[in-house]
């Protein structure tokens, strides 16, 4: 039985006459009895029509709870009221039923459509078990792994305008029912839609929980091009609310429309927009169901053994340089395993294309976008790591693991304080002897003033940065070559320290050795970040 009272009657009458669907009528009656929304829309409509045509039902209905079952048989005669009242009721009901029937028929004939003026069909056409089956099928087709889902509903912004128009239409009647009710007490279309659909979708998906917060989101979106222009008048009444932004296709976003409606006076609104709203000729269009699983984060450490492999794809003027990259080599097998749509790669610093990263490797983290798989065991992660390592001898990965989003920040925090070790092969212009190098082995905590290297000046701010070389070691090779070992503060530009960058790094190796020096090869020996944790077998 509908949870309506006598005072709801004028509201129901006005809204039905205005072309609202039965569920929207219930919404404006501010009833939060979910069961009432779940019953078929047409049935509710019949009940509402009966309700407005019969005073007796109205008064009795609040107490008669078990009637909900019987009214399915349809027809006012079946109502299980006490016999004493029944005769009277039947009389009235049958009397009004014919009248009621003719009204309905008239509506069907007169109006070209039954599309609700308030929800544009969302709570009519798109809100039943058939639609739930379709949504569930779309979800199933994507083969996601999930334990629960959240249903998100995106409605065309003009629905807010229509909602406000309907509210103004029945505001007086609603207030007469209860002074304290406001527009905020009207059940939202979204809310009603979820009350009906969540349970149905859950059932179709084998009883998975449909909750308010979940890692997995199923998005249902509606549009209604025919009435997009409903919003336009707001742009002239409240121009401040509609500022064009880069990423938005239209300035009439839901947020902007809500804001504008909040500002506009009832008088101004009614001057520009009809109340109740005009009847639409067709219902909303439902866009494809959008499934989105929250990102998953993978971390590990990588080695790079190749001097012609960039860390990330190297593109100049739209032209690709070098055929592969560290991130692509690592990502390819991971994307396959997790069936993700894409990834974002980040690491604790980066090496140049011609630099190798040896030792324990460089920590990295990867955000997997929209992963269809999310439950991957440690054993499988180990296998995945082996797959990556077997796929190329240019790189190697260790400690591959699933981490939380929060943990990935460990990699970046204090990045500048961490130390890194390098080995460089240095060329000297003047011939050197072993003894010429030994003084460098004793240098501790040498502070450099590094102007932003010319090499990166196009993308970094010009500044003088102080960086510390904690220690140096040398290994003589021949009269013009030696290996230089360095332990430095992260963020030190090693190549510039060796060749001097036109004197822009002070001091530099040229000054220390009092001859021109150049760097021929560079290896990262260690990146001293204690994250991610070591994975043991």
């Amino acid at each position: 039985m509908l949870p309506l009272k006598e005072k709801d009657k004028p509201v129901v009458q006005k809204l039905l006459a205005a072309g609202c669907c039965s569920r929207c009528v219930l919404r404006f009656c501010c009833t939060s009895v979910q069961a009432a929304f779940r019953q078929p829309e047409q049935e509710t409509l019949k009940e509402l029509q009966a309700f407005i045509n019969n005073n007796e039902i109205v008064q009795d209905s609040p107490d008669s709870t078990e009637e909900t079952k019987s009214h399915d048989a349809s027809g006012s005669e079946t109502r299980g009221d006490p016999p004493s009242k029944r005769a009277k009721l039947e009389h009235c009901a049958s009397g009004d039923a014919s009248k009621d029937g003719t009204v309905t028929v008239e509506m069907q004939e007169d109006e070209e459509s039954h599309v609700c003026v308030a929800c544009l069909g969302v709570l009519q056409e798109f809100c039943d078990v058939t639609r739930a089956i379709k949504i569930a099928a779309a979800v199933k087709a994507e083969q996601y792994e999930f334990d629960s889902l959240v249903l998100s509903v995106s409605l065309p912004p003009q629905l807010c305008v229509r909602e406000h128009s309907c509210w103004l239409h029945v505001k007086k009647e609603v207030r007469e029912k209860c002074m304290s009710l406001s527009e905020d007490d009207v059940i939202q279309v979204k809310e009603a839609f979820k009350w009906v659909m969540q349970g149905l979708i859950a059932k179709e998906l084998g009883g998975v929980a449909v909750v308010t917060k979940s890692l997995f989101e199923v998005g249902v979106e509606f549009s209604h091009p025919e009435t997009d222009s409903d919003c336009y008048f707001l742009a002239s009444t409240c121009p401040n609310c509609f500022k064009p932004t880069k990423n938005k296709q239209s300035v009439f976003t839901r947020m902007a429309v809500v804001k504008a409606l909040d500002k506009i006076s009832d008088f101004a609104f009614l001057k520009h927009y009809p109340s109740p709203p005009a009847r639409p000729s067709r219902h909303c269009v439902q866009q494809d169901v959008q499934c989105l699983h929250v990102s998953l984060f993978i971390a590990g450490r990588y080695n790079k053994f190749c001097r012609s492999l960039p860390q990330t794809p190297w593109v100049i003027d739209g032209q690709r340089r070098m055929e592969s990259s560290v991130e692509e080599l690592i990502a390819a097998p991971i994307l396959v395993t997790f069936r993700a749509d894409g990834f974002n790669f980040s690491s604790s610093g980066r090496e140049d294309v011609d630099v190798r990263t040896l030792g324990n490797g460089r920590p990295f983290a990867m955000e997997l976008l929209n992963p269809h798989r999310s439950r991957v065991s440690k054993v499988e992660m180990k296998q995945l790591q082996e797959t990556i390592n077997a796929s190329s001898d240019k790189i190697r990965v260790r400690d591959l693991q699933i981490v939380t989003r929060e943990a990935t920040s460990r990699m970046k925090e204090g990045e500048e304080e961490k130390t890194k070790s390098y080995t460089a092969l240095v060329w000297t212009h003047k011939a050197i002897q072993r003894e010429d190098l030994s003084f460098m082995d004793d240098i501790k905590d040498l502070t450099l003033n590094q102007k932003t290297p010319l090499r990166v000046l196009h993308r970094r701010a010009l500044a003088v940065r102080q960086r510390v070389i904690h220690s140096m070691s040398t290994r003589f090779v021949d009269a013009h070559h030696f290996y230089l070992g360095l332990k430095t503060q992260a963020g030190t530009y090693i190549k510039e320290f060796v060749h001097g960058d036109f004197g822009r790094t002070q001091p530099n190796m040229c000054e220390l050795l009092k001859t021109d020096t150049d760097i021929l090869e560079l290896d990262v020996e260690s990146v001293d970040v204690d994250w991610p944790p070591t994975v043991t077998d």
Partner: protein
Amino acid sequence: MDNEECKDTQDKAPSVVDRYYTRWYRADMKGKPCEDHCILQHSNRICVVTLAESHPILQNGRQIKSINYQISNGCSRLNNKVSGKSKRGGQFLTDFAPLCRITCTDENEYTIYSCIRGRLLEVNEAILETPSLLLQKPSTDGYIAVILPKFEESKSITENLLSREEFEKVLAKRAASSQLS
């Protein structure tokens, strides 16, 4: 590591300038004979203005008396400041914008020009303190200034300049004509 290869490359090995920069030249700047400028353009479009080896300042054992970045009463290149990634606030230079005036001990004064359009990022203050850098390392530590061309002009700004090859022809011609006279 491949030591063998490195050992015998000490003189042939490409220098930092060879590896990362393209050399562009402007000969006889503003019609003044032999006042050649060399622009080093990095692959990231940044340009370094230097004196070409053939510039009169570097000839005949000339010594530098003074370097002045104050190019007019109202404008000193030393006041140039850029901030942020986008290098806001840098003076914008055109081809013939003077960068500095260099006076030699023989009282000859030379003006060094930008040669390219772009935003001035920095001038080399080290040569003020140590003018000999300019004489000893004109194409590296003795650079004059760093300029960032507009992104869309990074290719076209060098159209008016001579390539290394073209410049060498100019030098050869110059040498030939000086022998004739």
